[in-house]
């Protein structure tokens, strides 16, 4: 409906994607990019609270954290790191093809990104179910054989809160990608108008960055103690 308004209003021929309250597509694009960046700032602060808690408790219980991290699977975590970074590459390429207007390649790379994202989530499910079988879910059923089980439980709630929140963002990201694929297939994006692709790319890369920190902080903290 917003489209029809825009065309009714001025005699100049307007791009169908231009909303009525913007003067031109450039202004609209600037606004959506800026909006996404500010949203990402709120995300930094949101995850920031958990990173703060992590820093405090890790500095209080370094040995316990190191030991507890042995219960995480470095191989699976490492594979997931590679998967996620690769998905960032494919996303960046999708943005590239939307800029140059190659619709087939755009769809291809969006689909690849989505598949990699789903792979990540699948591996995460495997990891979580292992933890579940080992009784490492914090709460009444928490079982931990090492010393200081209570402090180890702090490690594990941090692990689940941080990776869980991250996974939630991945799921939302996968949803956004599905929309992008649909609209790209409908031919909505062009070199003049592709800010949805661009802006979703920013989001996807941000989620990748969170993982870039989670991997060493959660999986690698105790590697040297054992090795």
């Amino acid at each position, binding site marked *: 409906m917003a489209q029809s308004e825009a065309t009714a209003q001025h005699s100049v021929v307007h791009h169908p994607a231009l909303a009525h309250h913007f003067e031109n*597509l*450039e202004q609209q*694009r600037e606004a959506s*990019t*800026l909006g996404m*960046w*500010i949203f*990402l*700032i709120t995300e*930094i*602060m949101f995850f*920031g*609270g958990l*990173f*703060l808690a992590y*820093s*405090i408790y890790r*500095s209080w219980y370094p040995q316990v954290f190191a030991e507890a991290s042995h219960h995480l699977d*470095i191989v699976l975590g*490492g594979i997931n*790191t*590679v998967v996620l*970074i*690769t998905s*960032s*590459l494919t*996303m*960046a*390429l999708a943005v*590239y093809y939307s*800029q*140059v207007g190659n619709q087939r390649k755009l769809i291809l790379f969006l689909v690849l990104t989505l598949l990699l994202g789903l792979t990540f989530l699948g591996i995460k499910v495997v990891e979580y179910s292992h933890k579940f079988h080992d009784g490492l879910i914090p709460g009444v059923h928490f079982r931990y054989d090492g010393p200081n089980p209570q402090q180890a439980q702090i490690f594990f709630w941090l692990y689940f809160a941080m990776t869980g929140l991250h996974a939630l963002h991945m799921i939302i990201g996968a949803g956004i990608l599905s929309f992008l694929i649909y609209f790209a297939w409908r031919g909505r994006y062009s070199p003049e108008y592709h800010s949805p692709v661009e802006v979703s*790319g*920013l989001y996807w*890369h*941000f989620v*990748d*960055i969170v993982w*870039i*920190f989670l*991997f*060493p*902080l959660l999986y*690698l*903290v105790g*590697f*040297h*103690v054992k*090795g």
Partner: protein
Amino acid sequence: MSEHIVPKKTYYAVFGALMVLTALTVFVARFDLPGILNITVALTVAVIKATLVVLYFMHVRYSSRLTQVIVAAGIFWLVIMLVLTASDYVTRNLLAPVARISM
């Protein structure tokens, strides 16, 4: 308008660097380094990786000054939260000797 289009080559190069850094951080983590060196290395590598993603994948290197300021502000605020909270935790035990003197 003039939106900057980053060449594909750059993306591949950044991807290669990210992979190498990932391998590096896993490799280094195996060694028991003295003091807080393990975590320092791990975080430094993570920061470099994040910086690469922000600058190239997220185009901040080519973005407007405003975007760059916003990114910097976000990181700065996170640092405020971490550092000022830490100012409590790292100085809590300093009180102990004072208490002993006054006794």
